[in-house]
């Protein structure tokens, strides 16, 4: 499979979200947002806290239904009502809080909701441990604590489990919500390498991050959200970090009134 990254016009989008709206009570968290993701592409989603990034992604991952709008996956209209629907469409999510059951071990978490079973539906714990060992060999070769509850793992190890869960089930679309927020520099670098590797395998990635340098480092395109709508989606190479920061803060496109002052502030 050959993938040309960053050339959106030449292939079918992996994901098209069209005119998505989400409200919580009186708060219009996501307003008429449309966004596309192509195979092998990383889109950096940036914006203030409460700008609607996570809510938009929760719609795609099935954690929260949209009030209106349409989702098209690989050219086909999709209905995503719950996390299971999303997983059936090969959409996997790595949540900000990692969403691990701390009392289960790594294989238990990796296969949660999709357990391997043997005769009569018995859990195949050895089989799951074996598969976990294989995928961890690739992600974090130093990982040895396959039988311990995840509560006893370090931040990086927990992250590895969360990522392994997404990778193992052959995600085509990956949502990463602050994947490196809890990690040290070395572990962060590991996650960056992994993102590049997954990207080269043709997986489309939505990357939510507060770290503008991470975003510039990894993304092909950057979408800036402000108060529930997308200010603009830009090619990474076409903008500077200051311009993006200006959009995050002021909620205006570069060149519009106010952008200059915003840049000056940063």
């Amino acid at each position, binding site marked *: 499979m050959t993938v040309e990254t960053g050339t959106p016009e030449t292939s079918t989008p992996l994901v098209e979200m069209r005119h998505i709206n989400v409200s919580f009570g009186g708060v219009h968290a996501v307003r008429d947002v449309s966004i596309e993701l192509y195979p092998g592409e990383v889109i950096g989603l940036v914006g203030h806290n409460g700008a609607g990034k996570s809510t938009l992604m929760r719609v795609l991952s099935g954690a929260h239904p949209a009030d209106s709008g349409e989702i098209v996956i690989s050219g086909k209209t999709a209905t995503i009502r719950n*996390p299971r629907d999303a997983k059936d469409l090969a959409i996997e999510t790595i949540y900000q809080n990692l969403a691990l059951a701390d*009392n289960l071990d790594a294989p238990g*978490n990796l296969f*949660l909701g999709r357990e391997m079973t043997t005769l009569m*539906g*018995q859990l195949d714990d*050895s089989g799951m441990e074996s598969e976990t060992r294989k995928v961890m060999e690739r992600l974090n070769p130093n990982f040895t604590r396959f039988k311990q509850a995840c509560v006893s793992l370090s931040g990086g190890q927990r992250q590895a489990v969360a990522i392994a869960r997404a990778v193992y089930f052959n995600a085509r679309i990956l949502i990463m919500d602050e994947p490196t927020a809890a990690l040290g520099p070395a572990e962060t670098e590991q996650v960056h390498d992994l993102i590049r590797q997954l990207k080269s395998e043709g997986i489309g990635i939505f990357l939510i991050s507060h770290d503008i340098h991470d975003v510039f480092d990894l993304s092909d395109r950057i979408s800036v959200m402000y108060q529930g709508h997308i200010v603009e989606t830009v090619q990474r190479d076409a903008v500077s970090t200051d311009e993006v920061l200006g959009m995050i803060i002021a909620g205006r496109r570069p060149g519009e009134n106010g952008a200059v002052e915003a840049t000056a502030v940063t």
Partner: protein
Amino acid sequence: MTNVAGTANKPPTAQGSLFEPLRRLVSVTEIDLRLFGMLVALAVILVGFDFLSGGKFFRPVNMVTLAVQATTVAVLATGMVLVIVSRNIDLSVGSLTGFVAMSYALLMTDILPNVLGMGPDFPFRWAIALALGIGVGAAFGALQGFIIAYIGVPSFVVTLGGLLSIRGAVWYLSNGAAITGLDPAFNLLGGGVRGSVGGDLTWLVGAIGCVGVVYILISGRRQRQRYGFPVRPMWAEGLLGVLGCAAILGVCAFANNNFLPESLANQYAQDHGMVVPPGGLHIPVGLPYPIIMLIGVTLLMTWVANRRRFGRYVYAYGGNPDAAELAGINTRWTIMKTFILMGILAAVAGAIAAGRLNAATLDIGEGYELYVIAAAVVGGTSFAGGVGTIPGAVLGAFVMQSLAYGLSFLGVNSPGQNVAAGIVLILAVAFDAWNRRRGS
């Protein structure tokens, strides 16, 4: 794990090195330390009471009685573990046990013979009553579970309502009267000298248990070898096998050392055309049916909790409800199922209680909810959710019952027993909390 450096009143002596071989043994054999500790505590309690009573306590007849008394609470505790692990509570178990017990009595004395035309001689009438009762228990569990999981009313409130209203409904079932005269076959479920399997079958149960232990050890080892995982050293496997079989056979020998009382033994001799020898007949009573039912329930529930998806989801939900939901688990149905299971177990406990009395009284199961919760908690179940084991809860029930039975054996009245039970409950949880803090 370092020594207790933080506790000022205990000087850090050579304790650590003294326990070191034991600790290594535990880690190599992968014994559950908590369960092991509970077994030790249980042994200490039994031996302690034996000492205090001048050697009269630890005898087969007492132990069998104690065990049978513990079965109802223990059966319910196996289900309460799953309910508490998934961050709920069921206060209605005692009332439901009483309701189903009354249902059995009503079925066998009225509904089955008078409505469905099944006279006392109808084959397997006891089993039909049991099955219907289990259905009643499951239905009440499903109703409460539905309100909790799908409507979102807190389980404390729903089952508190259940505690009151189901207990009230028991009165209406029988118009306030106790019902006696259950089927003789049904009464066997309650145990007693008649409701026991006898010497030979007890040995058979023991033999099956030993085969099971060996099979589990071998198949577990094969499984791990197949995937190239580290396995226990052979001596550790052997030790576990020998200890497991010895424990099982020891219990069987103990149960078979309990003999029929003289009048029944003479009756038995008459029925079988035997001559009573001068020293009297020694006919082993063996394991009572309720104990065998408890063993079955414990094994089944442990299997459900550890080897089935449902069990995995219960623990995952208890550990992190959001993670379970985001993993695509149908959490509501999972919660509802824990309450259905609890209802079924209440029906089993009700059968044991009614069978033992040969009657259904209005107060069967009264206060059980508290003993059951106490058993689960003493057995290591945490109200924070996600933590607890079924064998632990069964052991917890036995610890609590041993205490009550032992104290009553020493002549302490029931208020005194309650004082002791409450203190032990708090001590057990406090010890757990201390141990966990020290571990982290």
